[in-house]
């Protein structure tokens, strides 16, 4: 094993001072959530303001520490320190860890989160339960911070579970909708499956190292057997797959779009679903030590990216398009961090958080404007009706397809080339193709939504939409429009510039930020057959091709004219595998859900009453029958009794008469 693996973790400085700043950042959202939960009804409109303020305060406090990330680990408090909190048993110690990785995630959670809170004030203004909504949002922020700030795997698991819970709450926020209830349950159960993976990883690492803290586990990373590390990595990756919607545990993510749009933006795009990326980056020492794990995770990431992109093509719901695109983009990130291109993968997370939040919030503006209409077939021509949304989504689209100058360009190219650099040409090929498909489906969405003629007044039947349940409006009124537009506008900026931090190669701000976190590993020989520039050009060409196809199909004047008929036939012609999302739901249903229910029914209807209980009831029945038989013997006739007595006596005497005792 190379000695560098995990060596940095020995240097983690444990302080016994509780960093008040850190504690405040961590606990304020919890306090906010509790306050909103307890006093929500009294707060009325103030609930949103309170919730938003709390998150922005956390963001501000976090900013104080950014500078520390570039210096050396300070003594006392600040970046680079672990703060112990509670200890259950040896090996089960809980504390907070404040390092660049955690800081970055905290910034995104509180920053993007704050903006989405702000946006929600407007979006949820008409909802009676908005205090509850903000309580959940604040709770989510707390949970996510727990996840990223924990200095150990059990604490991570706590955060991991709590974000799943927050996600459940928010997906099922409109709990009177059966579809939302089902989606929430699905999301939660699949996330618990992920939690279970993480638990298994904890078992293995505890058995191997006797501890669950990052520092202890990672300092053993170099000495553990390959098999153990691979087991840990696979178990951890199950958790990542569930949380970050990787194959085959991704099926909950599109359904999760049942939640309010800000939720989709915050949880199911910007933050929670990238927890898997965080986890792998956090566990870099383990992945560094296991080439098999790298190959596996990289492959699944790539396949997820491709699957997501392919499925996004066939969607009509604007949020589901974005959901599949999220899945696809997280596939990129996972592939990046999976193969060891940590900085690139994280950069993609960082950029994606902005542009995907922007896309969702833009979509939210549209949905809001159209009274909760989410089907793009009922849209069209919205460029002028919702200009801010159009601009936002255009910027977001350009960013996501990697248009030069936009944030996605830097991050995605870094990931794609990083994969090639680390010797995975097959994955590279998938990544490049996926980029092309991304260009196609994103522009398809833009064209169908914003160009052409507005189709909201076209009868459903003409669009091939007959039979769908009516959209239920959650009631929008009251809030000024700028309240929603302001965060969108703010988000446009980082969506463009977020990638600039990585300009400058190895000496860039980005690389310096992570200098202590990811050991630089030698790249495998031979070097890639072509340079990064060539790769960039190749990707650009393929993306351009994808965009071009989208333009030809949806963007030309002719296409715009015949949109209604065209959409109708196209919807009918989508191949079945795409409609059924490649049968993943059916697979899970057939493998897990139905057998479990069948087993349960068999046990409760047959085994319990007719097998286990049968013996017991039989005994009772036999006893009762014997009792009645004995009653029958008792005829009341004296001579019968005398016969019994004498008969007994004869047997009795016979025993004694036949007894032969030794003298």
């Amino acid at each position, binding site marked *: 094993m190379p000695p560098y693996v995990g060596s940095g973790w020995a240097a983690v400085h444990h302080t016994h001072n509780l960093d008040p700043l850190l504690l405040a950042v961590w606990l304020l959202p919890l306090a906010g959530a509790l306050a909103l939960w307890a006093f929500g009804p009294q707060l009325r409109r103030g609930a949103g303001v309170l919730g938003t303020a709390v998150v922005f305060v956390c963001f501000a406090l976090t900013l104080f520490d950014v500078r520390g990330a570039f210096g050396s680990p300070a003594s006392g408090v600040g970046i680079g320190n672990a703060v112990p909190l509670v200890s259950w048993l040896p090996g089960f110690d809980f504390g907070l860890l404040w390092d660049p990785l955690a800081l970055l995630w905290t910034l995104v959670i509180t920053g993007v989160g704050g903006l989405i809170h702000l946006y929600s004030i407007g979006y949820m203004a008409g909802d009676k339960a908005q205090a509850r909504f903000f309580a959940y949002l604040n709770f989510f922020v707390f949970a996510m911070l727990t996840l990223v700030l924990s200095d150990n795997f059990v604490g991570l698991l706590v955060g991991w579970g709590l974000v799943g819970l927050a996600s459940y709450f928010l997906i099922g926020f409109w709990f009177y909708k059966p579809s939302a209830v089902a989606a929430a349950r699905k999301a939660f159960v699949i996330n618990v499956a992920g939690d279970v993976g993480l638990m298994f990883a904890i078992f293995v690492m505890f058995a191997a190292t006797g501890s669950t803290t990052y520092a202890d586990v990672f300092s053993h990373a170099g000495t553990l057997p390959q098999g153990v590390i691979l087991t840990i990595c696979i178990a951890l990756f199950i958790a990542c797959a569930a949380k970050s919607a990787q194959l085959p545990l991704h099926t909950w993510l599109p359904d999760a779009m049942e939640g309010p749009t800000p939720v989709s933006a915050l949880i199911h795009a910007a933050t929670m679903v990238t927890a898997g990326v965080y986890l792998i980056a956090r566990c870099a020492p383990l992945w560094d030590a296991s080439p098999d794990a790298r190959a596996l995770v990289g492959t699944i990431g790539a396949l997820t990216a491709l699957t997501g992109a392919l499925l996004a093509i066939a969607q009509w719901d604007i949020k589901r398009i974005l959901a599949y695109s999220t899945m696809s983009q997280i596939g990129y990130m996972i592939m990046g961090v999976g193969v060891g291109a940590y900085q690139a993968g994280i950069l993609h997370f960082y950029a994606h958080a902005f542009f995907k939040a922007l896309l969702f919030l833009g979509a939210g503006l549209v949905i809001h404007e159209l009274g909760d209409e989410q089907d793009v077939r009922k849209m069209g021509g919205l460029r002028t009706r919702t200009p801010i949304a159009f601009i936002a989504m255009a910027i977001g689209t350009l960013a996501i397809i990697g248009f030069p100058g936009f944030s996605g360009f830097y991050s995605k190219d870094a990931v794609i080339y990083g994969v090639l650099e680390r010797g995975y040409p097959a994955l590279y090929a998938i990544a490049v193709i996926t980029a092309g498909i991304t260009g196609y489906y994103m522009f398809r969405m833009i064209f169908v939504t914003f160009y052409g003629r507005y189709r909201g007044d076209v009868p459903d039947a003409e669009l091939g939409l007959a039979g769908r349940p009516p959209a239920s409006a959650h009631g929008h009124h009251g809030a000024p429009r700028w309240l929603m537009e302001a965060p969108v506008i703010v988000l446009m900026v980082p969506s463009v510039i977020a990638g600039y931090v990585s300009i400058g190669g190895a000496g860039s701000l980005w690389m310096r930020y992570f200098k202590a976190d990811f050991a630089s590993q030698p790249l495998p020989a031979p070097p890639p057959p072509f340079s990064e520039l060539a790769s960039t050009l190749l990707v650009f060409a393929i993306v351009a091709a994808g965009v071009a196809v989208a333009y030809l199909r949806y963007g030309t004047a002719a296409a715009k004219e015949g949109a209604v008929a065209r959409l109708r036939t196209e919807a009918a012609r989508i191949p079945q595998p795409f409609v059924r999302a490649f049968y993943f739901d059916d697979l899970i249903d057939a493998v897990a859900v139905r057998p479990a229910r069948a087993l349960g029914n068999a046990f409760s209807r047959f085994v319990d009453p007719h097998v286990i209980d049968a013996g017991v009831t039989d005994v009772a029945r036999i*006893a*009762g029958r*014997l*009792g*009645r038989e*004995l*009653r029958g*013997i*008792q005829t*009341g006739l*004296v001579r*019968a*009794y*005398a016969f*019994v*007595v*004498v*008969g*007994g*006596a004869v047997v*009795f*005497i016979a*025993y*004694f*008469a036949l*007894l*032969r*005792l*030794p*003298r």
Partner: protein
Amino acid sequence: MTPSLVIPWGSADWTAIAPIIVIALAPLLVLLADLTLPRAARRPAALSLALLGTAAAGLVALAGWGKPYVAFGGGFVLGGFTIAFEEIVIVATLFSLLMAYRLGREDQTAGGLALMLWSAAGAMLMAGAANLMTIFLGLELLSLGLYCLCGLAGRAGAREAALKYLILSSTASAFMLYGMALLFGATGSIQLSALAGANLSAPLFAVGVGMFLIGFAFKLSLAPFHVWTPDVYEGAPLPVTAFMSVATKAGALAVVARFAYAALSTPQSHVLLQPLWILAALSMLVGNLAALAQTDMKRLLAYSGVAQLGYIVAGMAGTTAFGLRYAIFYLAAYTFMNLGAFAVVALLSHDREEGSRLSAFEGLGYRQPVLAGAMTFFLLALAGLPPTAGFTGKVLILAATVGAGYAWLAGVLIVGTAISAYVYIKIVRAMYGRTTGAEIKRPVVPSSPLPWIGVGLCALATLVLGLYPIAPSDVLPLVK
């Protein structure tokens, strides 16, 4: 043997049987009072005198504690063992008397009370009897009184019970007597202690033991010699049933115990007692199973008694010293819990109907919570549930059987107890369960409040014995 005109027995011999003399003389006073006193005072006076006489006998018996003596040339042995059984008989008599205010017709009451005391005297004689002749005498004294007592109610059932008891019990007595004759023939002595040295291989002896045990298995209602019990218990008047359920058993048990411990205590002779333990096991099962289907409280208690006697006899399995102690302890516990249950039944009876149908208990928990509570307590005790003497007694019996190496008997005991739970708790359920439709309204006019004393004292004793078990400790040396 030199003939002598001097009666060979001194005052110590008479002192030894003083309690028996007291309880045998008291009926004379009872009858005298019945003859002389005005009509209205007869019943109370007769009952008071009977109670006083019995209590006096109890005190006199206690005075003999710690003064072991072999009286009447080995015919009667006084010791802790004897006194323990005597006291149990006396307690049973006292509680039965408390229920006996309306025993028979008004002009029959005094006679009935007298007969009960004489029967008690017979049982007490059995407690101390140490030769075959006194055993026979005690047994017949006990039985003859009971034959009459059984018929003392104005029901056809009572007469039937008397007839059945007469025929079957006499037959059993005849078996026992013939067994005694064979034992005498095999050893040439009527002393139980002389049997200890007998030639075990002689068939005469073995068959004698067998026939002797049959007689007592009948008296103890051990299955399958229990067939008479339910009918007789059901037919006889309630106080008589209560008396029989304890006093007869105590007397017979004393004889069996003495026989087992004094005559057959050698390891070689254990095989002669083996059938007794098998009968005990059978009784536990048959008694509890048969009780399952009963709807009359007296019949149910009859079968329950069959099972309870099975437990007691099982305690003596292997004739260990501690086994005897715990058997006596359990007998004492059984006395209180059983008589307590009878006292509750007595309180439920009114007019001519004895409150012994199970339907009389339905909804009792809501009509008479205290009485129902007491009944629950006694039933729990009979079922061997804490915190009662029944629980402690059962632990001790289990310990005794396991300690003596009769684990299979302990196993049967557990099975029997499990069945019995249903029997007893069924009544608890009737008292507290949801009643069908409107709650049953029954006029409760107890014929006499006296059984309340019995209920209270029995409950107290059942609780105290359960938590502070005073196991008679020095009974064994006095078994001869």
